[in-house]
């Protein structure tokens, strides 16, 4: 990049791309340390049962085995982000097929796997609950009999198999139905999607003689993984160093800890480095999924299309442990009104334990599920009212200064602009050649919003003695490109080339705190911290320059490439290196700018809404998007082909539009998979995941790729670095329901169950409910 180009707002390649294309980027599985052992996990073969005994003797006898560990070797420390209900290994009870019961370290991967398979566990079978209905049945076996005693971070802990329940109310829904001329009411269901990051999860742990363990692991948060290792292995955080290598995707699935504690425990027990990588099938069975959901929703409007009232209940199937579920339930409730003015709302969110893999955070975080219902209801209402579905939406979209459900002020709303842009793009596109016989085309829309922000982050920007800059944050780039974005922000603030910046790998020994790469927050949150830190460094640089050059700071300017000059006198300038040299002797060290920020916006306002039992309400700032999607449905096979999509996202300011396109196009295609192809299926007889392979769990390939137009809007929102907002999650909120609306538009029947697989479409066409 030449020195005089802008650094923000430009399409530039990723800083880490050269080593990626050369095959030299170091991911977790690429570490081979001297003396390294290989780990393997023994997972429960049954969905629900008591552990009567564990016999590890055969496993220990396998040649090359150095350690076998079970839950009996560790304190039963319960952990979890909202409800502390999970231990490192199942100790007296297993609650899903695949739940870790023991782990092995051996000199070869083959020996470790053989030993893991030879661990003998005697179980007493318990009846399993595999669906929301089974879990909520009156005589259902209870998964967590000690739920009442579990530590919980919020007020809405449930009873029985209900792990959480919360309500949010605005206005008077009961009275409002009388004002409605049309009402639609429907139940919608969505399936379990697997994150399917292409890099299976794992960790490499290396112990030292001071009792400290260093862990390289595929993760989304070094701080949360470090904390969980400390809790479960029962050592202080001072003895746990978590380092982020290159990460092969996350999408929420690696947000909380996974197998870092088991790897650390094996390493500390053996005194040798241990690599513990899951196979793809283990990753399917042992990590996390998106929550299957059932949403019952009722929406009413006046004859002129004014939305009046909505009542909805979201029930999420959380699997065997709470993990992020209470948060996902909360966001589903908060997003159920969508970006519309509906004065009367009654919402309930419920999370239910079942004997399946735990569901957790997944891109969208409850928003795609509730939006699948909400945005279809808008189309259903439009049909009843004889209105155009886009016009109905435009009549009701939030405006600047409106409040989000619960009362959080939304200073700027570009919802209408997003939708108008999507409609304009879709209608201006040339029509495709006619569909063949038995094939029906349809166009569908979705308008949506997503929050981004949450909790705290920090950054340091330091001047080195030669004038180059060192940037440190705790925010992990999981593939989306934040290392590049954050460097662009700092380079812009200091008028530097990107190659004058050293960007530190995230390491709990040295990085400033960051909560997590999640909630579409890294550009928005860590970007602000980096910008603030760079500005603080810049101010200090100018003070030193002012002393050195004997002019007032106001007469100085930064010049490209790490220089400070006197305004109007081109030849009068000094380098950052000269300033750094002075700073070392004048102020006792290099120039350092530091910033710590916390997302802090009023959320639920008691004057507007009544909230009870939600895990959190301060989720973040809101941004808007709209999708228009054209599909073709084969009425003979039931197959749905997505032909074209126009995806409009208002990102405030695109620091790097190429990265925004990457999130939008990639997110849309992941949403296409969720809508049409992907569903984890558990065998109703034994609770096993029936399709834990890429042969049986299909994700979109290049063949299914439609023509996707990413359209970026940049409405200044005020906050965020250069006004930038997050865009990681929004695309997967809009894609599935826009596809559903397009299918309904094509065939005149409405899909209520996702994924909308061919057999379900055929049932719909045959008149059966799908």
């Amino acid at each position, binding site marked *: 990049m030449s020195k005089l180009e802008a650094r923000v707002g430009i399409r530039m390649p990723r800083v880490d791309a050269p080593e990626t294309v050369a095959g030299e980027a170091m991911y977790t599985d690429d570490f081979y340390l001297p003396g390294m052992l290989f780990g393997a996990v023994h997972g429960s073969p049954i969905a629900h049962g008591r552990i009567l005994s564990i016999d590890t003797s055969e496993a220990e006898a396998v040649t090359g085995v150095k350690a076998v560990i079970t839950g009996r070797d560790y304190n039963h420390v319960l952990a979890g982000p909202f409800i502390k209900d999970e231990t490192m290994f199942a100790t007296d009870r297993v609650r899903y097929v695949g739940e870790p019961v023991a782990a092995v370290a051996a000199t070869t991967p083959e020996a470790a796997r053989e030993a893991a398979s030879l661990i003998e566990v005697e179980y007493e079978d318990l009846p399993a609950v595999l669906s929301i209905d089974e879990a909520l049945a009156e005589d259902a076996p209870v998964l967590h009999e000690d739920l009442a005693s579990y530590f919980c971070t919020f007020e809405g802990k449930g009873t029985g198999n209900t792990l959480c329940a919360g309500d949010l109310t605005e206005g008077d829904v009961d009275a409002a139905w009388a004002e409605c001329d049309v009402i639609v009411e429907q139940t919608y269901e969505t399936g379990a999607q697997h994150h399917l990051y292409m890099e299976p999860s794992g960790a490499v742990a290396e112990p030292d003689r001071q009792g400290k363990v260093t862990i390289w692991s595929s993760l989304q948060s070094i701080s949360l993984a470090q904390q969980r290792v400390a809790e479960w292995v029962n050592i202080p955080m001072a003895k746990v160093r978590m380092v982020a290598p290159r990460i092969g995707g996350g999408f929420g699935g690696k947000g909380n800890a996974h197998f870092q504690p088991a790897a650390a425990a094996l390493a500390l027990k053996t005194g040798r480095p241990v690599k513990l990588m899951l196979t793809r099938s283990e990753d399917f069975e042992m990590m996390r999924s998106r929550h299957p959901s059932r949403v019952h929703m009722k929406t009413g409007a006046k004859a002129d299309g004014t939305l009046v009232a909505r009542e909805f209940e979201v029930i999420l199937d959380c699997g065997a442990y709470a993990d992020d579920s209470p948060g996902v339930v909360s966001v589903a409730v908060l997003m159920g009104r969508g970006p519309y003015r509906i004065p009367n709302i009654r919402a309930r969110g419920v999370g239910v334990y079942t004997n399946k893999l735990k569901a957790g955070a997944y891109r969208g975080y409850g928003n795609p599920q509730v939006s699948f219902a909400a945005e279809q209801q808008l189309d259903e209402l439009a049909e009843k009212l004889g209105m155009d579905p886009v016009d109905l939406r435009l009549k009701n979209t939030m405006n600047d200064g409106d409040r989000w459900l619960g009362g959080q002020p939304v200073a700027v709303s570009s919802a209408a602009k997003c939708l108008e842009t999507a409609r304009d793009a879709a209608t201006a596109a040339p029509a495709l050649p006619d569909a063949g016989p038995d094939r029906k085309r349809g166009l569908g829309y979705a308008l949506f919003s997503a929050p981004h922000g949450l909790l705290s982050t920090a950054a340091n920007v330091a001047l080195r003695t030669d004038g180059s800059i060192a940037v440190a944050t705790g925010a992990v780039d999981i593939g989306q490109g934040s290392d590049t974005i954050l460097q662009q922000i700092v380079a812009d603030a200091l008028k530097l080339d990107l190659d004058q910046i050293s960007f530190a790998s995230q390491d709990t020994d040295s990085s400033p705190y960051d909560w997590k790469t999640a909630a579409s927050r890294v550009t928005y949150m860590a970007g602000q911290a980096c910008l603030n830190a760079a500005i603080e460094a810049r101010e200090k640089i100018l003070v030193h320059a002012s002393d050195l050059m004997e002019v007032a700071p106001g007469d100085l300017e930064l010049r490209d490439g790490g220089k400070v000059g006197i305004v109007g006198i081109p030849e009068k300038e000094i380098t950052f290196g000269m300033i750094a040299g002075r700073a070392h002797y004048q102020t006792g060290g290099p120039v350092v700018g530091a910033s710590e920020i916390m997302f802090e916006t009023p959320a639920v306002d008691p004057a507007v809404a009544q909230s009870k039992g939600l895990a959190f309400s301060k989720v973040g700032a809101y941004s808007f998007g709209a999708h228009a999607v054209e599909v073709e449905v084969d009425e003979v096979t039931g197959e749905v082909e997505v032909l074209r999509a126009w995806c409009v996202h208002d990102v405030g300011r695109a620091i790097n539009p190429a990265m925004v396109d*990457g999130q939008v196009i990639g997110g849309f295609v992941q949403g296409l998979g969720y809508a049409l192809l992907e569903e984890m299926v558990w065998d109703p007889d034994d609770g096993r995941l029936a399709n834990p392979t890429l042969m049986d769990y299909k994700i979109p390939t290049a*063949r299914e790729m439609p023509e996707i137009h990413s359209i970026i809007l940049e409405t200044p929102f005020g906050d965020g670095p250069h006004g930038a907002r997050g865009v990681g999650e929004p695309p997967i909120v809009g894609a599935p329901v826009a596809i559903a609306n397009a299918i309904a538009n094509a065939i005149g029947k409405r899909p209520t169950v996702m994924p909308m697989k061919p057999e379900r479409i055929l049932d719909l066409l045959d008149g059966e409910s799908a």
Partner: protein
Amino acid sequence: MKKVHISTTINGDEVDFLCEPTQTLLDVLRDELHMTGTKEGCGTGDCGACSVTLDGTLVCSCLVLGAEVGDKSIETIEGMAQGEELHPLQQKFIDHVALQCGICTPGLLVASKKLLERNPDPSEEEIRYWLAGNLCRCTGYQKIVEAVADAAQEMRSA
């Protein structure tokens, strides 16, 4: 089990290794030779992340046994750049931002290179179908297809 001694050629270099009869070529490349550019996405031949060529044929190295590759010629991602000079496909993947997390990238590059050797002027559809065996979860493929088409054009005019 007794290890097998294999002599073969990888990226033009003569290589000797010992492997278990059960180890796959992917295991050998990674665990024995520490050539970690070839990635494991599934281990069952479904994702294409471990793509290499074996005597010019594009294969999933997780479906080939290490003991089978004696006296063959294997090309991996590590052999794609000529020293500092990247292959046009590699450069176009960078320029088009045709990668995110990057785990699928080496396999996609190896597969794309093979495509262009067979068909220097593929249509957009031919690229999409050829690459349908290489899964990517981040990008949505569009930029990858554009990068391959752009590289093909550059290589034809070179």
